[in-house]
């Protein structure tokens, strides 16, 4: 009986999934960072991992809890700007500012989420669009509002140079932390509660699931890691502007990756990030047309919605039992 109950706690393949994450991390960390011929590989790796961190973070609230946020750029930008400011003004090493940036965004998410997460379905999504856009406009105009130079408005902030090798290792590390977090949440009691809310909030409430608290916590964890991605971007690109970091297109992209990859699965966001990173990289080397990747993403989204609600993860799960072991969709969830 205890054995059966332990399995009920979804503990049975946590270990295996974490081992895979660590193996991937070891391979990525082994890429030589100071040899010229690997510079392009490092660049693509950053792009894909950066996407995977954001998509995995978004999946906690959007995929597990089923509260679709279209405002995650607010947290991405908050992370980037907190790091940028601390780095430029107080000369703190940008990688050391990650936890501060994460906590700032988590705090912001609690303030925003506590009232809006009570809204159900499309109403929460609409509210987050408002939050995202309001945040972008606020940061763009903060200098005019306060009369002091804080963010340089839409012109953006130029940051000092920083060692790309350090950013590479930090990105791999954050990716590992995000993956392990999403695995543990999904396979644990917290995740079970989130899925129960996602599937039927009334039933969850009458069963004693603290729905408000779990959703706010999921939103805060999601915001924390999204902000870490923003900090990594700041350290890598050394330039920030509100239109890019707080842009609505970023919010959309963060939604599309887990949806195309496999909503509510652990590995779906990674597949989504690989696909999006790959498409973006290949397209930009073939043509300078910035709208072509968007067109391809849109097409992918239509295909997923029509044919495979669990995206790439669902396809792999169908194709083989080995695939099922690692992309095992917990439950069917829909946007």
């Amino acid at each position, binding site marked *: *009986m*205890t054995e*059966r*109950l332990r399995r*009920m706690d979804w503990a049975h393949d946590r270990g295996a999934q974490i081992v895979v994450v660590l193996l991937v991390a070891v391979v990525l960390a082994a890429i030589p960072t100071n040899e010229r011929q690997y510079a392009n590989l490092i660049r693509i790796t950053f792009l894909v991992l950066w996407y995977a961190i954001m998509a995995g973070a978004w999946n906690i609230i959007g995929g597990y809890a089923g509260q679709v946020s279209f405002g995650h750029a607010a947290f991405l930008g908050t992370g980037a700007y907190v790091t940028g400011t601390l780095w430029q003004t107080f000369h703190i090493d940008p990688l050391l500012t990650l936890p501060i940036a994460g906590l700032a965004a988590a705090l912001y998410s609690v303030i925003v989420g506590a009232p809006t997460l009570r809204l159900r379905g499309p109403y929460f999504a609409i509210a987050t669009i408002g939050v995202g856009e309001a945040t972008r406009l606020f940061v763009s105009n903060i200098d005019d509002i306060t009369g002091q130079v804080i963010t340089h408005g839409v012109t953006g902030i130029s940051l000092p140079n920083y060692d790309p090798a350090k950013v590479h290792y930090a990105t791999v590390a954050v990716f590992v932390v995000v993956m392990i977090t999403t695995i543990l949440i999904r396979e644990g*009691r917290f995740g*079970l*509660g989130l899925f*129960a809310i996602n*599937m*039927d909030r*009334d*039933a*969850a*409430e*009458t*069963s*004693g*699931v*603290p*729905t*408000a*608290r779990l959703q706010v916590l999921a939103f805060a964890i999601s915001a924390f890691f999204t902000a870490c991605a923003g900090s990594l971007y700041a350290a890598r690109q050394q330039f920030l502007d509100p239109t890019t970091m707080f842009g609505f297109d970023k919010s959309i992209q963060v939604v599309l990756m887990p949806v195309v990859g496999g909503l509510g699965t652990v590995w779906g966001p990674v597949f989504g990030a690989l696909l999006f990173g790959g498409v973006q990289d290949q397209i930009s080397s073939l043509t300078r047309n910035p709208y072509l990747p968007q067109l391809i993403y849109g097409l992918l989204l239509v295909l997923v919605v029509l044919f495979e609600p669990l995206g790439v993860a669902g396809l792999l799960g169908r194709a083989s039992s080995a695939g099922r072991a690692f992309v095992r969709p917990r*439950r*069917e969830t829909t946007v």
Partner: protein
Amino acid sequence: MALLEVRQLTAFHGDVQALWDVSFEVAEGSITTLLGSNGAGKTTTLRTISGILPPRDGEIRLGGERIDGVPPHRIVDMGVVQVPEGRKLWPNLSVQENLVLGAYGRRGRPERARTLRSVYELFPRLAERRSQLAGTLSGGEQQMVAIGRGLMARPVVLMLDEPSLGLAPILVDEVFRVIREIAAQRATVLLVEQNVHRALQIADTASVLENGRVVLAGPAKQIAGDAKVQTAYLGL
């Protein structure tokens, strides 16, 4: 003193008032039933006690302590558990997963292996189907899962909303047998039923709701003998 006391409860759905000064008591170890036609306010009363719908006015007490205004999961932790109308299972989860989710709160969690065993004893059929998806069960079996999920929280008061709704007569018998057993061994029962005849047979006390007001209350036998109840609800 009554285990659960509802005093002058007033509740609204938005701007529409649903309950007017609803008062009744549930004695420990008893079966109390709320009767009334559709829209009389029975489900609203249960949802208000559960904390899902905050009351506008009035008091709800459990063992003398006020529980109105307490969030739903805390009320479950205090031992007041609702089995919702229409069962509200998670169709894509297995029977056992549905049951274990009933012990999510801190009240049911520590004992959940033992409670699960006792729920399977009460419903041997569910033990056979523990790994089947809840959505694939028959209506009667789903109702058993819903009641079992409620019991997983180790309730002091179990509130059942229309447990016999849509079930075949033989399953209705089964549900009422289980309710009796629960009241005898496990928890005080507050029962909302449209099957007035059967409800009055097993209940100790009854309250009749009409348009959000309690219009009649008393021992179940007395209510069953009331001329108005006989014509309006029993078709006699």
